[in-house]
């Protein structure tokens, strides 16, 4: 991965339509309750402004990256929220185990010497 976390397949190149992507089957009345091959889940990250990081905005369904990007644009940037979008297959994300919260996250508590609390000049600086 590049330093700024660009996926190896950058968003700008995700214009190819994945022809072998699962198609929604033409629904017969019996099938209308559930699709046989549902679209896969994608996680959406939106950068609201130049200089800021991409932030997780939500998820959506799409058959491939090209449509996931477009759906993300339509669902998550309708109110001028973004200048850049990443979409990531949900299955590509590994997450920490919620049951290991103690071992994972409690250690830094109380270690205030790890915080730069004694610097005052930087107060009010944006995006720091």
């Amino acid at each position, binding site marked *: 991965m590049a330093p700024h976390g660009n996926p190896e397949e950058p968003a700008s190149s995700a214009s190819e339509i994945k022809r072998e992507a699962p198609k929604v089957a033409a629904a017969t009345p019996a099938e209308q309750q559930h699709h046989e091959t549902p679209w896969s889940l994608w996680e959406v990250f939106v950068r609201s402004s*130049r200089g800021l990081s991409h932030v997780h905005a939500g998820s959506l369904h799409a058959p491939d990256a090209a449509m996931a990007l477009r759906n993300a644009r339509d669902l998550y940037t309708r109110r001028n929220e973004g200048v850049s979008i990443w979409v990531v297959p949900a299955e590509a994300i590994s997450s920490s185990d919620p049951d290991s919260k103690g071992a994972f996250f409690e250690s830094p508590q109380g270690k205030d010497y790890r915080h730069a609390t004694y610097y005052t000049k930087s107060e009010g600086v944006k995006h720091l």
Partner: protein
Amino acid sequence: MTDKDTDFAIEGHGDISVGVHGAGASGDGSASATRITPGNALRPEDIALEVRRGQVKPSEDVAEFALRIGDDGLILAQRLGHWISRAPELEEDIALGNIALDQLGHARSFLTYAGAAWDKSEDDLAYFRREHEFRSAHLFEQPNGDFAVTIARQFIVSYYQYELYTQLMESTDPTLAAISAKAVKEVDYHRDHSAQWVLRLAGGTDESRARIIQGFKLVWPYVDELFEDDELTTRLAEAGVTVQPSSLRAEFDRLTGEIMAEAELDIPAVPQALGGGRRGKHSEFLGYILAEMQVLAREHPGASW
């Protein structure tokens, strides 16, 4: 735009908070990290304000032309809005809704401007004109059909509007140019959206391919009308307000042809409909659209909600 126009455009935002001048969210390093602003694009309200202040007033010809393209967007928005809650996927539901709202936004701007010639508001024009007073082309009032028909119609509309608005950005009429400059970016996305779906439906299952072929067959008869010149467009083309619609055809054919070829679809060999929308002669569908669109405003004139 002149400085004066820009200043007024900010003021015209009324009660929507846009923060300090220039602090739009897009690409501005000093923008707030948390507060989202609507940005500073030209809005119909800004045009209405300019009209009230007597800063702009279209000629009769320009107003008649704005009425045509405004009606195109208005009728299409009404059609597309019908998809909300009915699209094949939730994501697509919102995509079609967004396109409908974009079209409605363009229509509001064009109708607000057109109305200035006759002392009428956008609502007067949308809700209190009769069928033969509408100037939209027949394509825009064609029924949604299934999803493929809607995509085929949107594909033709988007490629037509993109060529038209691109040319109108060079218009000698500054208001038409400004509305078009805003609209063309949105229509560019509509092109991408519909082209993607044409490719997907054509390259999908046998069923989806059959449906997009049938969809194009149903809407293609209404293509020629979009590119017809008449006395009004001839006068306006001479004045540099717009170009002759026929001059947009070559680029439309080339760009739609590229997508159709990639999708391995043939341009349907179907005869062209008579048209007449620009003269107020409409197909049987428009009356029903207007009945639904206008009933509330006519039953309760002046109502607000």
